[in-house]
């Protein structure tokens, strides 16, 4: 249930409301949750200890205990500290006054050095430099070969005098390369070295020798974002061995939480300069400390979601839909199909849902989510005639039966989809009015409320659904565990933050415990989220 740190903290502070002050025991409970969240994200234990120590100090200070909402304040403090460590000192590559600038790469086996060498060359080339790659990994079979191909793709010259596979002296190659670069007028030299373990003294000495030989302006330590508790030992060994000047986090396109970033930054005090996010040449970017902080704390990643959405959605179609929605027309099933196509391109539905803030509370459900569910929904919509898609109201019993037959499913499934679709339409309509999301608040999204713990309800199919709705309408008082309401409030909160007027939808329920969910929602909004909306505060 409580997967994100903010969720857990909200739970911890639930009983605190009204007390107005934090006792030491409360703080301890909070610290335990933070510790756990960090460990789950693979932050190294010594770092977790130091970190929670600092948080504890700040949490007991006036700053937090005096705040109106201590839970929220603690998360803010945690976030601040994280960003402070991760991005205390972001800087660009330092270039030599007299070229060539030498950049040396070092790291464990399989960290992604050779791939990164290519990306770095590609990026530097696009910045107007003339990079040269040096194949000083003579260890791994065909590493030289790989660098040559990578260099070719990046359009950079590769200096590879030795065939590799154990033949040749990497220190010599590195030394010679500087002269070659000078004669060939390359202004940046990137030295790719073999992967080595921190405890391999011989190889560490070799790396140190290469460092002395080429006297690099930057030594970049490449580390896998998936690395666990070993990060500290490895980073320390490399700091001692090659005294790196910056860190590159690789494989950030995976779904690891990347706590290693925090470990390395904290232990070595060296800045994380780049993030490598995929296998193609272009997937390489400057490191964003704030996004990383959110990722470590499992806060959802709206920015990435939006970026991906922009990449994959058809601009024209989206523009059309936007106009349609603004004109107050209904969102129809054709739009649904086009948007779904874009959605599919964005990859795994599970991953995307996971990126939405507040969604991690459904982690278990998501885990069991069958990706083919999307195809089934699509099959139903595709079994409709164009007329039915534009105007779903004409769907009568026999049409529904036909659609069900076409999609190889039951009429119940069709009915359920149509019911959900009506709710989505309401949501869209609500959006144009600029108010919250009335569709979701006013007893909408019936299935949502039924998700957890309603398994024992009698009856089947549509019948059950009606009960769910009526039950919902009749309910008084706040059930903060209700995901529908949470989701609705998450949305409401987003709107609120963006400065829009908000319909007091939630109050239609009566005694809804709004405040309780408020801190949860706020915490889930990553920094800069407000900026996504016009008039929002940054």
């Amino acid at each position, binding site marked *: 249930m409580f997967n994100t740190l903010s969720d857990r903290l909200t739970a911890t502070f639930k009983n605190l409301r009204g007390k107005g002050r934090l006792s030491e025991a409360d703080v301890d409970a909070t610290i335990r949750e933070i510790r756990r969240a960090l460990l789950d994200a693979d932050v190294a*234990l010594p770092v977790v200890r130091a970190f929670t120590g600092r948080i504890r100090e700040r949490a007991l200070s006036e700053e937090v205990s005096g705040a109106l909402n201590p839970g929220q304040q603690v998360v803010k403090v945690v976030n601040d500290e994280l960003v402070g460590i991760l991005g205390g000192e972001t800087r660009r590559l330092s270039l030599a006054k007299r070229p060539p600038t030498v950049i040396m790469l070092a790291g464990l086996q*399989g960290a992604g050095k050779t791939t990164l060498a290519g990306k770095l060359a590609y990026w530097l080339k696009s910045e107007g430099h003339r990079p040269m790659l040096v194949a000083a990994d003579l260890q791994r*079979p065909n*590493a030289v070969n790989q660098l040559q191909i990578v260099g070719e793709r990046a359009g950079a010259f590769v200096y590879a005098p030795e065939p590799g596979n154990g033949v040749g002296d990497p220190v010599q190659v590195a030394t010679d390369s500087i002269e070659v670069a000078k004669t060939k007028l390359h202004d940046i030299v990137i030295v790719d070295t073999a992967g080595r373990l921190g405890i391999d003294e011989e190889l560490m000495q070799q790396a140190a020798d290469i460092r002395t030989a080429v006297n690099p302006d930057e030594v970049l330590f490449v580390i896998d974002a998936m690395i*666990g508790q070993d990060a500290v030992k490895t980073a320390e060994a490399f700091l001692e061995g090659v005294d790196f000047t910056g860190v590159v986090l690789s494989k950030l396109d995976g779904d690891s*939480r990347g706590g290693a970033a925090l470990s390395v930054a904290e232990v070595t005090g060296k800045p994380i300069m780049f993030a490598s996010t995929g296998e193609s040449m272009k997937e390489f970017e400057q490191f964003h400390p704030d996004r990383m902080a959110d990722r470590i704390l499992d806060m959802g990643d709206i920015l990435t979601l939006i970026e991906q959405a922009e990449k994959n959605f058809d601009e024209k179609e989206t523009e059309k839909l936007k106009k349609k929605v603004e004109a107050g027309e209904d969102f129809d099933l054709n739009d649904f199909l086009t948007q779904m196509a874009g959605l599919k391109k964005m990859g795994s539905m599970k*991953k995307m849902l996971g990126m939405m803030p507040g969604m991690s509370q459904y982690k278990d459900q998501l885990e069991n989510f*069958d990706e083919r569910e999307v195809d089934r929904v699509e099959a139903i919509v595709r079994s409709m005639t164009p007329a039915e898609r534009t105007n779903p109201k004409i769907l009568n019993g026999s049409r529904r039966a036909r659609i069900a037959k076409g999609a190889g499913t039951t009429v119940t499934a069709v009915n359920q989809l149509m019911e959900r679709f009506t709710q989505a339409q309401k949501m869209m309509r609500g959006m144009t009015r600029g108010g919250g999301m009335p569709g979701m608040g006013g007893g909408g999204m019936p299935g949502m409320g039924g998700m957890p713990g309603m398994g024992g309800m009698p009856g089947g199919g549509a019948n059950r659904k009606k009960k769910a709705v009526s039950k919902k309408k009749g309910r008084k008082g706040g059930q903060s565990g209700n995901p529908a309401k949470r*989701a609705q409030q998450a949305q409401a909160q987003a709107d609120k933050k963006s400065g829009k007027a908000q319909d007091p939808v939630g109050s239609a329920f009566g005694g809804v415990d709004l405040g309780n969910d408020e801190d949860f929602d706020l915490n889930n909004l990553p920094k800069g989220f407000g900026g996504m909306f*016009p008039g929002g505060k940054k």
Partner: protein
Amino acid sequence: MDQPIILLVVAAIVFILVVGLGITLRVNAKKKGLQDKQGIDADVTGELKIDDISEAVAKEKESARGSEVPTEPANRLVRLRERLAKSNSGLGRGLLNLLSRDNLDESTWEEIEDTLILADVGVDPTTELVDRLRERVKVLGTRDPEEVRALLREELISLVDPTMDRELATSHVSGEPAVMLVVGVNGAGKTTTVGKIARVLVAEDKTVLLGAADTFRAAASEQLATWGGRVGVETVRGEEGADPASVAYSAVERGKAEGTDVVLVDTAGRLQNKIGLMDELGKVKRVATRPLGEGHEIDEVLLVLDATTGQNGMQQAKVFAEAVNITGIVLTKLDGTAKGGIVVAVQRALGVPVKLIGLGEGADDLAPFTAEGFVDALLD
């Protein structure tokens, strides 16, 4: 206005779909709930209070009567505590606490916990292990930290389960080669592992054929061919960018035609959250099965897991298991400082045994996995 619109559209559609999910889940939950209910009816024990203890004592007596030689009093006390520990009633537990106060100080427990967390075992499995250990310590009345460590070792070994079958299926079935598929994320050490396995098999006098189905990474097939060349094994290769499934197919087909004992197929590294690549892997497996006779599936699917991997290792194992049904794990880079504790959780969750460990870049740095050795290194 553009971006939020996109976002909200996505949200809307996503919610619609989640609702779909909610309904299927609800039905499942209902079914499950029914089963659970029946299950609970069968063993409602939670309400026993005084009965619990008297029953425990009665059983004690009974067993004492039943056997010719009465058990030692110390043992009997242990058994009584055991029963109390198992009982769900508050009174039973309270009594247990009275009977056996554990005198180990908190710092010992913390130390144990730290050892496990530092080995990447993970917070949840660690807490669970330590809780179980605390219970056992209470039951046995142990006070000596050394003894506790021995108990921990025992618990861990039983978790890793030394009785599991860790042999590689390398004997060919009815004239067809045994097919082994090696999968994993980028940079885990797949190609190196394939090279090493080939070497071991050649040393066992088996004929081997390599299939370089990593057609994506630059020079990956050359890297594999170099490994193959060292032990005199041929490599089936495709063009760079060719369909990996076709390479796997031709490797298996050729292996069958030539009467090879084992066909080893190397695949491209892929992060488990890239759905397209995981689908591709599923296809490689399906297509590679095609030349084989009816009912002969791929014999081994080995997941290569880097020992330095943290909690993400669990996710990797889960997703790969879902996509290609892994039959074993190869834990690589154990020659470093990393302990690879994540496999404890992985094995517990998926029941897939670690079969081999990689200990370096040398050709012979591959060893069979032993539960005891692994656990000792973990606690070291």
